[in-house]
């Protein structure tokens, strides 16, 4: 039985995969994570999460093009699956519902969805 809920770091990485699109591979994701969150992370940590997400079925991957700065090596490009997208939505909805139940914040809060 695979775990279907998302952890905080997992959720962030999954969203970044969506944001980067064609450029979603481990190194770029780590860079993007660092620039967006200003927290440092190792490529290994991101890669480990990506492989876990792929195991859960939230991501698929395939080998992409090779470039010169990688010494001619190919990169593995990740894409969100429908199931992954669904998981993100559930996570978001769940949090929104929590926010809504919190009277002090509810009026000002709008996700624009």
């Amino acid at each position, binding site marked *: 039985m695979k775990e279907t809920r998302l952890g905080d770091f997992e959720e962030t990485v999954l969203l970044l995969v969506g944001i980067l699109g064609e450029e979603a591979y*481990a190194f770029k994701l*780590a860079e993007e994570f660092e620039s967006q969150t200003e927290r440092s992370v*190792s490529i*290994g*940590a991101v890669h480990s999460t990506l492989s876990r997400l792929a195991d859960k079925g939230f991501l698929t991957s395939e080998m992409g093009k090779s470039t010169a700065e*990688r010494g001619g*090596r190919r990169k593995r490009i990740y894409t969100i699956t429908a199931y992954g997208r669904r998981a993100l939505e559930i996570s978001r909805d769940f949090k929104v519902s929590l926010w809504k139940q919190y009277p002090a914040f509810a009026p000002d809060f709008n996700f624009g969805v």
Partner: protein
Amino acid sequence: MKKRQTIPPQLARRFLCWFLRDELAEEVEGDLEEKFYITIEQSSVRSARANYWYQVFHYVRPFALRSFKSTYPLTHYAMFQNYFKIGWRNLFKKKGYSFINISGLAIGMAVAIMIGLWVYDELSFNTYHENYDRIAWVMQNQTFSGTGIQTNNNEPLQLAPELRENYGTYFEHVTMATFLQWRTLRQGEKVLTKTGYFMEPSAPEMLTLHMLSGTRNGLNDPHSVLISQSTAQALFDDQDPIGEVIQISEQFEVKVTGVYEDIPSNSTFAGMQFLAPWELNESSLPDWLGWGNNWFQTIVQIAEHTDMSQASAAIKDAKKKRVTEDEGAEYNPQLFLHPLSRLHLYSEFEGGVSVGGRIQYVWMFGIIGLFVLLLACINFMNLSTARSEKRAKEIGVRKAIGSLRRQLVHQFFTESILIAALAFVVALLLVQLSLSSFNEVADKEIGVPWLNPWFWLLGIGFMLLTGLLAGSYPALYLSSLGAVRVLKGTFKAGRMASLPRKVLVTVQFAVSVSLIIGTLVVFQQIQHVKNRPIGYNMNRLLTVSLSSAVNEHYDVFRNDLLQTGVVEEVAKSESPITDSYITNSGLTWQGKDPGMQEEFVSMRVSHEFGKTIDWNIIEGRDFSRDFASDSMAFVINESAVEYMGLKNPIGEQVDWGSSGTYTIIGVVEDMITQSPYAPVKQMFFFINEDRSSMANIKIKPDVSMPEALATIEQVYQQHDPLEPFNYSFVDEQYAKKFGNEVRIGTLAGFFASLAIFISCLGLFGLASYTAEQRTKEIGIRKVLGASITNLWQLLSKDFLGLILLACVMAIPLAYYFARDWLQNYDYRTDLHWWIFALAGLGALMVTIITVSYQAIKAAQLNPVKSLRSE
């Protein structure tokens, strides 16, 4: 271009590739490299490299790790289990072979362990004393005309005060000491005879005695004594000995002020069962003792941060400055220090220079031990390799069903280490069992250091090494052969395959033959010296050291003894007849070369001495109570006649300074009163009953020995009820002079038989190997009509050649060493040719018997069977 030069740290990359799953390698390496170059642009090469390492380490995560197990689905554990099983089965399948192999190696290891322990014991001699590297004996070199420079540790009693006073800065402790003395210790009714020393109060501190009760200051009071634990136990049982009063030889009354732990046998002071104050001994000495009376020893401990050789050089003339003309200044006494650390192993001096000593034996036995071990290992490897060729088929099958080469290597190593381990266990058992008899022969108290980690480390390390070497041929060579070749049986050892084995067997026999020759020479020498005419009759002769109480009434004592009817004659002498240690000089006679610094061995005796020991007067007459003038008469030996250069010795006058003028009345045949290996020294005998305290008693021939001893003891006790009756047989005393040689002979014989045994195992292995290789040939020869004798000759003659070669190698070598050893003795045997012939013949005989067993067994095989086994 520049970019090409800065590449990611290769070590980190290799490390990454080592642990990373293969399928991830490309993307990860790519990512890291991209990161690396971007970091270079953003900051520096240095931080890029650091970051690369950081990234690599962060890939050590479960998802990325290569699964080492999954590559080889068989676990090693299971395979090792299998190797053990196969190993055991092979051992039991060929019981005889396994027995030979394991016992041979075990014996070699056992010998090596024992010799190793012995060498360790010898090298660690005296380390019991904490300051052993700073303690030294004061020795002196004296020059005598005739004998040259003599070195000994006898010193006058004035030396210690002199050293303290004028050379005190060099020394922390200086003490006079007696030589080891036999004394009776009496407490109440209990009397014991123990050995011990008299030393100054600082001695316990210097020797760092381990006090069990009392303190090391125990000797400050002159009427005190320190006793060893075993003495305390024997004298007081479990009572507290401190403060108890004991009598030493009924001469000194002393109080026990301390008990020290027994000193171990590998110490020069091992015999110290009591330690009494020097002052006590000094009080009993005659007051005329001067710088010329070298009766004692002087032991020093040099001060901290002082150099031993400096101190030694400084005291060189300490005695010479004090000693007067009368006291022997002309002998030019030169003092030096002999460190305690060298005392045991380097105490032979020639011409005043250290020339080694016991260290030679340490080397000799060390080398022999190594040889025996080497022979055993070589054998072990030989037999293992010869056997493993039989297993080529097994290797083929294993390979065919998919065994990796590495697994075969593991298998053969496991097996050979298993055998080596068994041998090691057997060796430990053998050592434990034979250590007590070894100790007896070697005169030691060695135990196996079961708790010493170094012992285990060395032992197990050696065991692994032997196992690995022995297993290397099948493990590394046989496993490399192709499965098809091995299975088809086209694999055959070439003609040269047995060459190394032949060389090894030859070397083994050369060593064995040398050892046999060595043993024969040692025993020949002992026998030769034992057959040397000694010049007196030791039979039924015993010596008794008389106590002062008996000595005072000697004439009554003698009469009483003679009246018992068991005693033929009784006479006194100054020293034992087998050990005349007293020398004198200051004699002049007519025709003496004025420059000659003469020295004679001398012995004070009573009138009946000659009759008692049955010496042979060859000229003149023996001492006699009929001539009053005999109190000023000499009987000299043949050597003395020659030494003095006298034509007609009888009636010659010898002037002995203040002692008066003596007349030579008789010449006696040379007698061995010192070392039986050395030429007889010039010696004179003269009458002086007062200073003789050794009684020589000749027992009548028809009286039984126990009866005679009981009677004599009874008479003795009547005269001195307190002192125990101590006697020794002269022939036993004489036999002790051969102790060292007999010990060497016994050990050499022991090793020689071991070496022969081990060599025979090797030969046996080689013979069985060749016989097996030639099974088919023998079958065909038999079919064609060869007789068993023919076949036996065929198989044996190769080996005889090898053994003859070994003899040719061994004989010159053994001759060289044997001659070298015999040079140590003035009175020595010739190296007879038959010793060498006997050793060679013996080796040949053993060879023929060993090889014949295999040869005849092979020759008797039914050719139908041996030819069918295709």
